[in-house]
């Protein structure tokens, strides 16, 4: 299989297995073309960062990966999104897709339930028969929240601070052991210390999971990501801006010797 990113070739990708790939993917909201002709192959058990200016379609793209865009009436796409070669939009149950591909949202969104029930939700909903106490403890430990909440597992998840809530959401997402974890700016509401905690957590998770993370923080992408995809938005004929993939390559290459002028300007903060 030959996966080529827009305007670039990514030879490095060939030596690891592809988890999620897009082929000539166009995403629309009604008539509006939000993402145009995206071709990328996301490698297994690596951290892939999506960067780019606001509104270029990063959230739109990762929501295609777990079919969460299905909730939006006006959404439709053409082209293909595949998961280990299987087309995610052809004869598959979106619920099953989301059990394999978990998600952490831009805004922390714990359920208005106890911390314990937040974590146990996934196992209960998917009928997993595991020791829930142990599952809760393990998930919270992995998301670096256990020490802070171990004495108040029965309190409401919403009573935690924003950063704690986000770590709770991460614990919730990994509690069901998905293959892929999508993260949409998971640190945007966190202080530097929690951010560092989350970053090292993500690095750790990447040993078992495939992580796809949207971030606006260049240093963060440079620190954690194995691969980075830069998206940009460009006005089409009718004046609307649709996003496209500019360059997808190993992170070092994106930051040190990008193939595209636009990428260089963006990562150096000279984005006009």
């Amino acid at each position, binding site marked *: 299989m030959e996966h080529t990113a827009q305007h670039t070739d990514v030879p490095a990708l060939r030596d690891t297995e592809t988890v999620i790939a897009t082929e000539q993917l166009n995403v629309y909201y009604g008539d509006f073309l939000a993402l145009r002709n995206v071709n990328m192959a996301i490698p297994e058990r690596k951290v892939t960062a999506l960067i780019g200016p606001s509104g270029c379609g990063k959230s739109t793209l990762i929501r295609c990966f*777990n079919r*969460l865009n299905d*909730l939006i*009436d006006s959404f439709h796409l053409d082209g293909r999104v595949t998961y280990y070669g299987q087309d995610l939009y052809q004869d598959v149950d979106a*619920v*099953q897709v*989301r*059990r394999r591909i*978990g*998600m952490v*949202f831009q*805004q922390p*969104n*714990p*359920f*208005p*339930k106890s911390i314990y029930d937040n974590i146990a*939700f*996934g196992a*209960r*909903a*998917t009928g997993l028969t595991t020791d829930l106490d142990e599952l809760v403890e393990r998930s919270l430990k992995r998301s670096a929240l256990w020490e802070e909440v171990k004495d108040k597992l029965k309190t*409401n998840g*919403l009573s935690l601070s924003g950063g704690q809530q986000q770590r709770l*959401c991460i614990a*919730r*997402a990994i509690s*069901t052991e*998905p293959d892929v974890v999508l993260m949409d700016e998971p640190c945007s509401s966190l202080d530097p210390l929690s951010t560092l905690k989350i970053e090292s957590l993500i690095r750790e998770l990447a040993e078992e999971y495939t992580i796809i993370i949207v971030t606006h923080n260049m240093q963060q992408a440079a620190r954690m990501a194995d691969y980075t995809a830069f998206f940009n938005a460009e006005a089409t004929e009718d004046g609307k801006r649709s996003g496209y993939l500019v360059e997808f390559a190993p992170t070092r290459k994106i930051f040190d010797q990008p193939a595209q002028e636009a990428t260089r300007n963006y990562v150096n903060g000279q984005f006009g």
Partner: protein
Amino acid sequence: MTSSTSGPKGKPIEARSQRSQWSDRSFTWLTRLMAFGVAAVLVFIGVQVAIDAMPAIRRYGLEFLVTSSWNPVDDAYGALPVIYGTLVSSFIALLLAVPIGVGTALFLSEDFLPRPVRTVLSFMVEMLAAIPSVVYGIWGIFVLIPFLGPIGDWLHQNLGWIPLFGTAYLGPGMLPAALVLTVMILPIITAIARDSLISLPPALRQAALGMGATRWTAIFRVLIPAAFSGIVGGIMLALGRAMGETMAVTMLIGNSNDLNISILAPANTVASLLANQFAEAGDLQIAALMYAGLVLFGLTLVVNILAEMIVQRVNVYK
């Protein structure tokens, strides 16, 4: 350290103008007054009813609540049958209206149907609340009671050994009254439950579905619990309406002051009793009716406090 006081930077920040402060304060007082006004009206009515009920309270005491004669000739009054009738008719109505209403609300808040169709349906449900209760009464007399005839007969013949169906169906009685109450409180439950479901943050649904939950898991484990206090609030409002409903119930319940377990038999409620007897009541009878009214007041209060306790206990926010 000499900053010019005339420049925009060094200029002292002004205090709020007298006028703005004054209008602020008067608005606070106005709202305070109105809030207390509502409470005052409630207390006033309660006290007035209690004063008017005093002769009966003195004479019958708490026995009033547990005796069942209602005889103006002997001045023997007891409210047990009407209290029982009020509670049972409201309970049956809730039992039927809660699942139907919450189910309808779910149906109208999910995307099973195109949005325009949902809007029209929601509107029609809310229109049910605009029908005057006397119209419900007439509909009950001319449509519902005849319609229930064969059903009532069947229930009595086949399930007559159950005390609830222990008497023959005579037409007016507990069953038709409770069914009409069901229809009358349905729009309240539906509208409020639907509003509480619709106003939940979309992030909640996304979180649930993003975890690989099915639609039904999301609904029953996340959305309904999150909207719980709103839904219970609607149910309580509906219960208050059912317990106080007068006209339609009077026309359908048969106005019998004999206590009967059978829902096929005629019965009576507090509100219906008051409506029927007030016009030609003598002194002590008026006091007895007022006492019954006070009991209804108290019942509603107890129900509301109970509901508040349930919400407090289960309420997941905060």
